[in-house]
């Protein structure tokens, strides 16, 4: 049990570095880089921890929860660093992009174009399964980040007061 949680922590730690890489690639200001690392850590931690702690939750739901939490967390951080929230939120959720599922979908589609005979229906159902997961995880990430920032129609999150 202890080992599994340790593993969650290590994965989240590396998610932070993946987020940081994208922060630098997107030329984020230097004063925001630590917050981007922390955002990636938070996203990874919430995703892997909820996969671990909530049985039957699935990767789509866990990615969505992680993205929503990052989206909400980006608002106070944006206040304190005087930058738009998207600067933290976008690099932070990119480590959760389902690369392996997307790759398996692509492989499946390529197999389907070939001559595979009796395996066809198995490959077809696997490909659709992987494709749907890829699509929904990406939608969950994008919506999860966008929704907290657009829940009010005020022109800026600077005007949201917590009290």
């Amino acid at each position, binding site marked *: 049990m202890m080992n599994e949680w340790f593993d969650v922590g290590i994965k989240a730690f590396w998610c932070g570095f993946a987020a940081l890489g*994208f922060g630098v*690639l*997107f*030329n984020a200001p230097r004063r*925001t880089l630590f917050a981007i690392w922390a955002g990636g850590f938070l996203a990874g931690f919430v995703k892997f921890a909820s996969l671990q702690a909530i049985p039957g939750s699935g990767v789509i739901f866990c990615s969505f929860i992680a993205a929503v939490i990052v989206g909400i967390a980006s608002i106070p951080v944006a206040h304190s660093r005087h930058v*738009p929230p998207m600067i933290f939120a976008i*690099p932070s959720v990119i480590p959760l992009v389902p690369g392996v599922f997307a790759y398996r979908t692509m492989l499946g589609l390529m197999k389907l174009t070939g001559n595979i005979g009796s395996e066809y229906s198995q490959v077809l159902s696997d490909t659709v399964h992987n494709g749907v997961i890829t699509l929904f995880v990406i*939608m969950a990430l994008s919506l999860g980040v966008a929704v907290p920032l657009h829940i009010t129609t005020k022109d800026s999150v600077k005007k949201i007061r917590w009290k």
Partner: protein
Amino acid sequence: MQVPTFVDARIFGPLLLDIGIALLTAGASSRRVRITMVRIAAAYEYELHVDIAPKSISLTLHGSNAQEAFTGTRSTAGVGVNFKIISGISRLSWTITEKKWSINEIRNELNRLINLPGYPQLVVLLVVGIAGAAFCYTFGGDTFEMLITFGATFCGLLVKQYLARKSVNPYFCTYLSALMAALLIGAVYKAGTGLQLEHAFTTSVLFLIPGVPMINSFTDLIEGEILNGIERGFNVLIHALAIALALSTVMVIYNFQG
């Protein structure tokens, strides 16, 4: 009587367009471009009507006096990502609302922001390489796979930066960068090093994900900027297709069965 903050619409209008187009080019969502422009216009008591297209901005300014009006359009050649400009202009817009800068001060600050240097190339290559290795770990890769992914990401990004400087078509740029990264992974696999293909292969190309347009696409759709949202979404799809094509090219070259 002239209000002290009065600025000529024929000077203010083009400046506002430049600010808007700088934001659009730096990868801001349509809503962010709109609210920033409206905020700055309001600070100088102008009413603004603005139309934001995927690669151009049109605006009409109205002052309190009906004769003060300006109409203009600006377009941009290509949209990239630069968070320093987005955060800089966001700060600038708040400063303007609080301090009412002169047009010259705003123009100088805008020029300064646009010409801000990015991170040194080697730093970007190293940090993005580490990000590639980090991706590899979270997808279940071991240390050796992480190391190879670091190398492939480093080389792939180097190709991307070189082609971007030569103004190569962005989709072709993505294809060739993914090809470079995947060819390297394939070569290490073929050398019989016991590399697990799936982890390294998938994660070496993840630095090419167009993350900003992907999220902006949804943001635009939620905000009712449907046309811009669809445009950005399709842009992401074509990049994804370019990555997939590069991977399948490498699989044909090395005769991988998947």
